[in-house]
């Protein structure tokens, strides 16, 4: 049944609608693909029984004529989304056996529209990481492998990126038709670029954060990963929507995003931020960026050079803001009401031992940074300073968007790298997010579209950045890039 797993979400929905196959058949094919791909370590929990029960219910709904827009579509869910009655761990031992008694709003929206859950996807612990190596469940392996020794080390296992590495790997390996993911500094877009998939981080506030394990609340935003721009648009439509349970949820209408894909982009003005031409960027990425510019020109866009002068300060500002928020958010894991408890000599000792045993190294490191920058005497020098720089970064975008409709940049400064290559150097790892993190600080929508392969045969992505709430234009542009790039490469199955 490999043909059923190779379908796009759109063609699968068409096939279900014209009764070419049932959701049970479609789901069974995906369940088998998931079981056969355990070498990728993309899933931390498989829920085949639940998937088939949901598929059966979907077929019944379709038979009675009330199928929803995603009815019967098997999806993977990042293990950061609380799923009622299904273990949710954020890939951390501190909540390693946590079973939520409630459903996140984003996943509830997907089930409302008929989607089927295949299981929970691996990720960096608490979404902190760019390579999926901080997961307590072990790293995810990228289904892509380098063709030659150059750029990737032959057949050495590569990272799918992070933090949504399980989502990226599962979508690229055709284990699911699409997946949920989250993006705090690039965690949807960088893994999308590393795996030849499409990822969208919508405007902050489009997707409810309710029931999504919190990392940095002013930056966290959910979004979809899929194999085509249209599929991502379909998932995004379902995931978004106002939610009174999230006080930063935007009370705005969610458009049907899919029709934006394929719309003409003629006359749109595209900004090329000169500060994104960083030192040591591989020539292939620079060339791909030039190619993307040429494609959009051919599609009728006007190319304008713009300046975002504070770009280089985005990552350092992020590494104050995000750890500060994380240190506060993760204070809740104290071993009292849920999660891991390691008994100590007294209450404080119990807290300290529980948290030492439950959190991974990178999570502890970020909690420590956050605690330090918020501690007495440093708050103004670090935290307040970072919030002011954040404002200047957002102002840069505001000024650019007075002149252009969207921006085009590379998604990541390299192709997928080897597992273990950067795990000893936190700052080198953080630099992965150099092109993506600005968007989170400003709360803007961004998406990554696969645009080509490097010399080693590994996928590279281009990033589009839009005005707040203008995902529609991004999707039209993403569709134009997808069409021009005609990216059809798939990873050779080895798993």
């Amino acid at each position, binding site marked *: 049944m490999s043909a059923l797993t190779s379908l796009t979400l759109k063609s699968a929905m068409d096939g279900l609608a014209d009764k070419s196959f049932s959701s049970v058949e479609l789901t069974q094919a995906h369940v088998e693909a998931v079981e056969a791909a355990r070498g990728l370590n993309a899933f931390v929990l498989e829920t085949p029984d639940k998937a088939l029960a949901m598929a059966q219910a979907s077929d019944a709904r379709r038979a009675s004529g009330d199928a929803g827009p995603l009815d019967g579509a098997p999806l993977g869910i990042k293990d950061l989304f609380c799923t009622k009655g299904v273990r949710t761990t954020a890939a951390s031992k501190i909540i390693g056996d946590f079973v939520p008694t409630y459903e996140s709003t984003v996943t509830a929206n997907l089930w409302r529209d008929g989607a089927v859950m295949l299981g929970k996807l691996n990720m960096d612990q608490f979404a902190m990481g760019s390579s999926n190596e901080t997961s307590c469940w072990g790293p995810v392996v990228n289904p892509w492998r380098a063709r030659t020794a150059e750029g990737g080390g032959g057949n050495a296992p590569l990272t799918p990126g992070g933090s949504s590495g399980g989502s990226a790997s599962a979508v690229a390996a055709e284990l699911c038709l699409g997946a949920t993911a989250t993006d705090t500094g690039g965690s949807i877009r960088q893994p999308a670029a590393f795996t030849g998939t499409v990822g969208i981080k919508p405007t902050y506030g489009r997707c409810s954060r309710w029931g999504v394990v919190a990392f940095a609340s002013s930056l966290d935003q959910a979004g979809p990963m899929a194999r085509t721009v249209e599929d991502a648009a379909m998932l995004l439509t379902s995931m978004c929507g106002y939610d009174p349970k999230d006080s930063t949820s935007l009370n705005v209408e969610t458009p049907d995003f899919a029709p934006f894909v394929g719309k003409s982009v003629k006359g749109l003005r595209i900004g090329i931020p000169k500060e994104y031409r960083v030192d040591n960027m591989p020539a292939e990425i620079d060339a791909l960026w030039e190619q993307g510019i040429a494609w959009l020109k051919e599609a009728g866009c006007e190319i304008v050079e713009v300046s975002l002068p504070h770009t280089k300060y985005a990552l350092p500002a992020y590494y*104050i803001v995000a750890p500060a928020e994380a240190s506060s958010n993760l204070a809740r894991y104290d071993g009292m009401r849920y999660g891991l*408890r390691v*008994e100590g000599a007294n209450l404080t000792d119990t807290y300290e031992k529980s*948290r030492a045993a439950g959190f991974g190294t990178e999570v502890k*490191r970020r909690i420590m940074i956050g605690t330090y920058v918020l501690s007495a005497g440093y708050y103004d020098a*670090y935290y307040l300073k970072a919030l002011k*720089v954040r*404002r*200047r970064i957002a102002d840069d975008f505001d000024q650019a968007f007075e002149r252009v409709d969207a921006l085009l940049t590379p998604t990541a400064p390299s192709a997928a790298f080897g597992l273990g290559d950067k795990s000893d150097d936190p700052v080198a790892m953080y630099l992965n997010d150099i092109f993506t993190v600005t968007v989170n600080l400003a*709360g803007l929508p961004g998406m990554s579209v696969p645009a080509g392969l490097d010399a080693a045969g590994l996928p590279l992505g281009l990033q589009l950045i839009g005005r707040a709430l203008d995902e529609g234009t991004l999707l039209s542009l993403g569709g134009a890039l997808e069409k021009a790039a005609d990216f059809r490469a798939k990873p050779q199955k080895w798993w």
Partner: protein
Amino acid sequence: MTIDVATVRKVARLARIAQPEETLEKLAGELNGIMAWIEQLNEVDTDGVEPMTSAVHMPAPMREDLVTEGGDPEMVLSNAPKRAGAFFVVPKVIE
């Protein structure tokens, strides 16, 4: 500003994370590396800039002060590491 071992010990205590004494020096090195990289923020002129505390331009929403959900102790306690009846069991807090 360099972070010494004493500062790391203090921050670990504030963060309620037990850090074995022998790891403090390495941790101090890592934190210093990260903070040195962050220092470049001082190059940015932020005089008179309003700190950005939220990514959305809207006032905090208000709602009626009413109980919306509740009354289900089983749900609340279902993940408790230690419980007795309808109560959480926690270490002794008052001597």
